[in-house]
């Protein structure tokens, strides 16, 4: 068991190092980049695109428990939640709350 738990600690340390690396290199690169520069604007576009790609992937090709729900149901829940977000003048609490209940209900009873 102690070998197992020291292994877990190592896994955590390696995961956090692999994660911090991109953040740290980002700070180093930022020191030479002005917010008015073309490079900054380009990276800004990429940052938003990468996030959109990540989120779309979570909906279309999810990992873990979410993969056990139907893709049409997931899409319906996301669209309904965004509609509620826009309808409530960009309140984020209602759509997030609704989405969990909606998905669990539809997934269970449909």
């Amino acid at each position, binding site marked *: 068991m102690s070998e197992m738990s020291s292994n877990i600690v190592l896994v955590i340390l390696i995961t956090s190092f692999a994660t911090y690396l991109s953040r740290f290199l980002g700070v180093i690169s930022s020191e030479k980049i002005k917010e008015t520069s073309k490079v900054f604007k380009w990276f800004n576009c990429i940052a938003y695109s990468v996030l959109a790609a990540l989120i*779309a992937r979570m909906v279309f090709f999810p990992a873990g428990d979410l993969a056990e729900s139907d893709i049409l149901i997931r899409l319906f829940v996301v669209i309904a939640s965004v509609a509620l977000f826009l309808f409530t003048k960009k309140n984020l609490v209602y759509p997030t709350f609704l989405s969990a209940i909606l998905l669990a209900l539809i997934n269970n009873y449909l």
Partner: protein
Amino acid sequence: MINSKYFFQGFKSIKGLDSPALALGASFIAIGALLKNIGFNLEQSIFSTFLTYALPGSLVMAESFLVGASLINIFLAVWLVNTRLYPMTVALMPLLLHKSQPRWKYYLSCHFIAVSAWLIMKNNYQTVEKKHRIDFWIGIGAGTWLTAIASTIIGFLASDYLNKDMMIGLAIVNPVYFTCMMVGAMKNLQINLSIILGAILGPAFFFVSPEWSILYGGVSAGTIAYFIGVFK
């Protein structure tokens, strides 16, 4: 040191109507439960969120650990899924850099760069003058990070009471919250195109390479959007 007025102004972003607390809470409760199920103890689960604080990275770690992947493979898998943090950092830090502020604040606070804190900062940085933005950012980061740690603890402790349907419900909250935040962030042609093209090309590249789809899709979509914005 840190200007407490701006720190708390940022810290308070975890409450209110556009609070990320619910979404962060839901996803890290799921992480806490997941880590317990794969054999982590409470201290290790807390330690994991404390040090990593990036949801996709933690999921990849858990998956790799379960299948008994080697440490080098875990490193590569996590690094790959979290490389998105590099463009995110480059798109954020130049807005916060100020000569009067010490470097350590930037090196430490980049740990808080994750989707929710990043989107809040990008939507609100103009409300704070440049000199104080780093303290405002540390406040936002500390608030979201502590929410994630507290939720990991709750998820770990509550895991026996969370059934499959509840876990599926929790898992949709994060993409829904992020989608709403992204829709809220759409305010000029370049950003709108970046978001729409990214959402199309990301899943499209999944058929070419699942591991690289986010980077391929994101970099190509962002580059196309940038040039359309320049020539328009």
